[in-house]
């Protein structure tokens, strides 16, 4: 348990998110602790990956539809108006969650906490709330770009 409490999750998550946004989207993401952030409302998508092994948990990327479309367009090298379906946007968000989760999982493994990653899942809608319980640690971050924000949340506990 001591190992988990000593983990520098902030550095892990900031590094993962900024790296993914820079490499895949050529976007500068400003990632900070979400203290006082009111949360997202309206139609949004959540991409989640779970990990299990010596440490268990999940990491989710929650993003409003307009930002998600802009991110999808950037990832696919298109204009926002060229995105043909919501399915394309969902797939992009799922893949971003996978990359962020994968990088985080690598950092956990290198920190002596081996685990396996699940495939990403997608939830979308407007009237829902994400709650996770029973975790030893949870952290919430805001990822901002050009006035739009996404939330990255991580929950972990020992096996």
């Amino acid at each position: 348990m001591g190992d988990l409490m000593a983990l520098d999750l902030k550095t892990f998550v900031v590094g993962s998110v900024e790296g993914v946004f820079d490499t895949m989207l050529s976007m500068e993401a400003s990632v900070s602790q979400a203290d006082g952030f009111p949360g997202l409302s309206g139609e949004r998508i959540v991409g989640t990956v779970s990990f299990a092994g010596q440490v268990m948990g999940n990491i989710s990327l929650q993003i409003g539809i307009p930002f998600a479309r802009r991110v999808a367009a950037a990832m696919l090298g298109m204009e926002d108006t060229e995105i043909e379906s919501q399915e394309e946007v969902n797939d992009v968000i799922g893949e971003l969650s996978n990359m962020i989760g994968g990088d985080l999982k690598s950092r956990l493994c290198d920190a002596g906490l081996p685990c396996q990653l699940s495939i990403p899942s997608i939830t979308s809608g407007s009237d829902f709330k994400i709650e996770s319980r029973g975790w030893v640690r949870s952290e919430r971050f805001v990822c901002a770009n050009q006035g739009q924000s996404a939330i990255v949340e991580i929950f972990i506990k020992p096996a």
Partner: protein
Amino acid sequence: MTLKVLSIDDSKTIRMIVKKAFKAFDCEVFEAENGLEGLTLAGKVLPDLIVLDITMPVMTGVEMLEKLKADPALRSIPVIMLTAESGKDNVLNIVKMGVQNYIVKPFKGEQLIERAQTVIKLETKVEEGPTEDASARYFSLEGNVQVLTLPAKIIRPVVVEVENLLKIKVEEMKKGGLNRCILNLTGVAETNVSLIKLIITILETCQRSSIHIRVVGTATLSTELKSFQETSEIPIRMTIEDAMGSF
């Protein structure tokens, strides 16, 4: 000779990125959503390279790779593994599987091409020039003035086509001694980022080639263009006749 690349990933996004990366090369990209589909397709098309994700439903990349290596007809096909995990243990496992190369997500298309070039010889695709029909869709001659008319909706394929055609048309104009051009935006129905970027490209291309250019558009478009910093200072004429008279 056109090389065959097989992209196997449950993410359509990644398959699109892989396809886009190889677009500039003489390659045909085949796609599969999981290891089982990938194995079947590999047997049919005998690709020159496989780009293989690790974590997939139905059959993982590792499972597929084992079956690939066990098949005499397929075992020598070079494989580049895609993985979202960069940890030491994961890398060691990949190397133990005899994989020539791997890429950790996130990755840029150029990085994938760089890795691919270590295992196969990629040839740049010879671009076919735009056809006369394509040029006639956009360009017309009014006396000694070249008129470039943009369509209602400006999307990426239109931008690419117009930019390519414009380069050819500018050379033709120089050879023919023409140095006047009208950019006709009266048919454009929607102002978007692609349109703004295309207008700037057209103006800059003409300026570099010492071609005098006038822009024609509707009052609505003129107002909309003023709200973008890049196009706010461009004078917009309301008719082709106005533009002709201003030369």
